């Protein structure tokens, strides 16, 4: 339990910029070798671009495998280092152990040990030094100071939990589940100084504030969509042509909540001469009933011309939900009782929320020489990720390379290779990532068997 608390706290406070890694986790070693770019017509392409419904997804068309089976070398090493029958007393999972390091556990959560870690990111293990006087409190977090975010940080994503339906003649009818959440935190200047300044530290009378703004909403959305081919090339049997797609969603929100406001510590003056007060002065809006309603849509375009393919898809355009029965509550902290007190300000009022617009732009060029170049730009609700990669096939062999810019705006690199023998291939991809608390990149080797 404590382990979980530590891990969640770390994830929220420190690891928030890493949300992209989790969303893009893949078993495809080929993709990792190309810097994370996906040349597949399903997955992200189909998720964000409704025009892809009109295109074939088979591997003959794109050169991508039907599916990949990961070779979990990382798991073998992990269970060798952490025997499964000793996990309960393993220092990695035991907060009582003097070797327990919350960083390592958090890194594990964000980097499932499926693949082999060639170079692990170091888990900070520095000392923390406090200078305490009647009117002085200075913290020196050592190397961990770099973890204190300078700007707002948070978690956020828009997901389509499922999308079930059927269609004919290019039309698609279905129901999808949607979930959107976004949690943002901002440290005010006094709190930042308290955590980073090793000369002045906390000043008497300071108000240290952590500003938060969190929203979550989810529900179902009956959907009507269309995807079709507008034009085709000289040979209609090929994929050449211009494809369009669109979908209209009627959002039926099931639940919604939004919490905004600061959590504060009011420092005494002198600092240790009086008891500091803790303060929470937040507003909480929640739905009383599952009655969020709204309309929004997706549009997409794909153009295929011989070896060239480009697509653009935008989701949740104009998606505004109206919740006709919500309540607004005031959340405060009672310093006397130590309890959080919630009082209703207004009830049975209307509230409007929006779903953020998400998008993808992707392109691929498949040359006759065995070379494939591709790239994509994806924004799934919080920050843009860019991937660019290339693959060169020569006979049964393939070499790959790529670069990407992650949601932390850090450049990452990938390279790898593969051997394909008929319907079966073996791929290996090395990729750098910053899915950890460290500022140093780690390198992971992904291995997979691909079925074509």
């Amino acid at each position, binding site marked *: 339990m404590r382990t979980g608390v530590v891990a969640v706290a770390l994830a929220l406070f420190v690891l928030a910029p890493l949300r992209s890694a989790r969303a893009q986790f893949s078993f495809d070693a080929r993709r990792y070798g190309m810097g994370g770019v996906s040349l597949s017509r399903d997955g992200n392409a189909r998720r964000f671009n409704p025009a892809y419904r009109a295109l074939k997804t088979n591997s003959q068309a794109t050169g991508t495998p039907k599916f990949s089976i990961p070779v979990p070398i990382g798991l073998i090493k992990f269970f060798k280092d952490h025997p499964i029958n000793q996990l309960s007393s393993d220092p990695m999972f035991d907060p009582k152990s003097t070797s327990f390091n*919350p960083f390592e556990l958090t890194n594990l959560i964000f980097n499932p040990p499926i693949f082999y870690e060639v170079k692990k990111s170091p888990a900070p293990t520095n000392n923390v030094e406090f200078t305490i006087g009647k009117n002085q409190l200075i913290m020196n977090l050592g190397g961990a100071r770099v973890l204190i975010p300078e700007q707002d940080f948070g978690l956020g994503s828009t997901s389509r939990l499922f999308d079930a339906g059927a269609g004919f003649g290019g039309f698609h009818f279905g129901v999808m589940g949607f979930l959107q959440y976004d949690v943002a935190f901002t440290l005010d200047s006094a709190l930042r100084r308290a955590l980073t300044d090793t000369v002045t530290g906390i000043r008497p009378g300071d108000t240290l504030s952590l500003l938060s703004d969190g929203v979550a909403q989810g529900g179902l959305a009956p959907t009507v969509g269309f995807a079709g081919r507008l034009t085709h090339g000289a040979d209609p049997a090929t994929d050449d042509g211009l494809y369009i797609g669109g979908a209209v969603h009627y959002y039926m929100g099931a639940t919604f909540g939004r919490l905004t406001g600061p959590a504060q510590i009011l420092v005494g003056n002198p600092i240790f001469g009086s008891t500091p007060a803790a303060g929470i002065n937040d507003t909480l809006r929640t739905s009383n009933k599952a009655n969020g309603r709204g309309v929004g849509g997706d549009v997409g375009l794909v153009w295929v011309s011989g070896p060239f393919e480009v697509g653009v898809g935008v989701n949740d355009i104009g998606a505004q939900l109206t919740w006709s029965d919500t309540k607004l509550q005031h959340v405060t902290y009672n310093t006397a009782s130590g309890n959080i007190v919630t009082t209703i300000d207004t009830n049975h009022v209307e509230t409007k929320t929006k779903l953020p617009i998400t998008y993808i732009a992707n392109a691929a060029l498949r040359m006759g020489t065995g070379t494939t170049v591709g790239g994509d730009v994806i924004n799934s609700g919080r920050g843009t990720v860019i991937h660019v990669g290339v693959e060169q096939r020569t006979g049964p062999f393939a070499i790959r390379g790529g670069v990407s810019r992650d949601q932390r705006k850090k450049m990452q690199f990938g390279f790898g290779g593969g051997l394909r023998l008929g319907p079966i291939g073996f791929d290996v991809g090395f990729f750098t990532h910053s899915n950890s608390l460290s500022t140093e990149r780690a390198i992971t080797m992904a291995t997979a068997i691909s079925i074509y």
Partner: protein
Amino acid sequence: MKALAAALLVFVAACGQGKAIFNVDVYSFMAGSGKDTIPYAIPPASSASASTFQRILLPPGFGKSIVDSVRITSGNANLINSAGTGTIGLQFRFAADSAGTNTAPAALSIAPTTVTGAQTVPVAISGDLSSTINALFTRDTLWMRITATGTNPGLTPVTGKGAITALVIRVVLQDKIF
């Protein structure tokens, strides 16, 4: 104090395996309160002691931690002697409550210093505290008593006061907050 320290400990936990080090400026809490001075008066051909005590506050939540060391890193006192010739030594005692400091063994003893007539003699205070009191420093509150023990071999009383001018205690522990 507790709320502030507890909130900030979230970040200590986030710093991975390492040590938590507290440099507690005890003198800053004593200064101006009268607790930073120990008046003494030793009758002729005898010995006597006088003391002062101070509560020390530490961040809460370190009850499961292991204290590596406790040391007075920066300490000074002035023995401001008014009359007589004798020696003054200082002892530092720690306990969980103020009454306990009366019976606690000395965790650090500063060798006696000779004082003569009206003079001010500076005394440096530093050294490791006895490891037997380490566990006390995992508490969020403990008490310290400074005892001045004097001897007077002469025929006139030795009078004066010891004045603490600096006292920083450094606590190093393997932090286990959760």
